[in-house]
């Protein structure tokens, strides 16, 4: 089950890391392997630890679901689809023409991916922006991100510090 679900995520999460998040939200609703709050914490941990976000998320989600074996299963399933597709792509005689077609095709999917991530952000917001203090912190963090190009780790640590200071 875990293998099948993460294999599908690997196939359909186009555009990397953050694109896996909406799929994981669906999983939490469908099976209840983990809660949306767990998932939000996983995003924070995945953003602030080394390694690609998508891989980190899969490992974490797999671990929450079924321990070490779950983590291994989910991560391997996620990367397996990548390996298969790229090895196949390399074996093709007419690789360049194929890549071009794939490119136009997947460019069309990008707006949908943007909508998906926006929806995930919206869900997290609905769950966690409970009072004006939270909304205020949210707005100021969002503004800061436009003014200063710091790494996500910086903002996650800052958000945690603000949460502690204001007893959020």
């Amino acid at each position, binding site marked *: 089950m875990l293998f099948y679900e993460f294999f599908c995520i690997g196939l359909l999460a*186009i*555009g990397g*890391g*953050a694109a896996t998040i909406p799929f994981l*939200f*669906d999983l939490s609703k469908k099976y209840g392997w983990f809660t949306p709050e767990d998932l939000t914490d996983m995003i*924070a*941990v995945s953003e602030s*630890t*080394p*390694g*690609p976000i*998508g*891989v*980190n998320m899969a490992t*974490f989600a797999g671990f*929450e679901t079924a321990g070490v074996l779950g983590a*291994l299963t989910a*991560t391997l399933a*996620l990367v397996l*689809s*990548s390996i298969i597709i*790229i*090895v196949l792509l390399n074996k093709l005689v007419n690789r360049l023409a194929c*890549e071009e077609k*794939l*490119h*136009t*095709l*997947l*460019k069309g*999917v*990008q*707006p*949908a*991916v*943007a*909508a*998906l991530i926006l929806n995930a*952000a919206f869900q*997290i917001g609905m769950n*966690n922006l409970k009072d004006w203090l939270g909304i205020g*912190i*949210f707005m100021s*963090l*969002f503004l800061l991100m436009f003014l200063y190009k710091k790494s*996500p*780790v910086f*903002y*996650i640590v*800052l*958000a*945690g*510090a*603000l*949460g*502690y200071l*204001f*007893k*959020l």
Partner: protein
Amino acid sequence: MKVWVELFVAFFKTGLLTFGGGYAMLPVLKDEVVAKRGFMREDELLNYFAIGQCTPGIIAVNVATFCGYKLRKTWGAVWATFAMILPSLLIIMLIASVFKTLTSYKAAGHILAGVRVGVCALLLKVVWDLCVRIYKNTQNKIWAIFIFAVSGIGLLLGHLSAVTVVVFALLVSLMPLFIKRGKK
């Protein structure tokens, strides 16, 4: 034999030293694969990034698979990918196993509440950057906005699943390819 070890070290280090994946790992990878080891030229690596971004799956994994394949075919691809995800597996499993205990402290509750607000802001910024990039790179802007709007409405009002939305977008983007072929 030496190539296998070098391949492993290069991608293990990339997985260990980069935060966030995707283009964040380009500088490290350039250093490890191009400058230090001469496995490939810089333009080849950039090309892999371009393709890795528009093939399904995680960009970082796609690039590792491509590089591994170039050096040692299928098993090279598997090996490079394994080396790339190994740091994530180890670090995340370690954190995940102590996470529940750590967050049961009272102070952690406030910190986590703040962090969740921060994650929400971060995701919104990701969407913003993605929208800006799509808008700049697409010729048919109205079409892109249309797909965005339809997916958004479907998600909010129809509670569609992510799988449904992506499959819908794939089918819709396939249409122009067929129409073009029909005209020929």
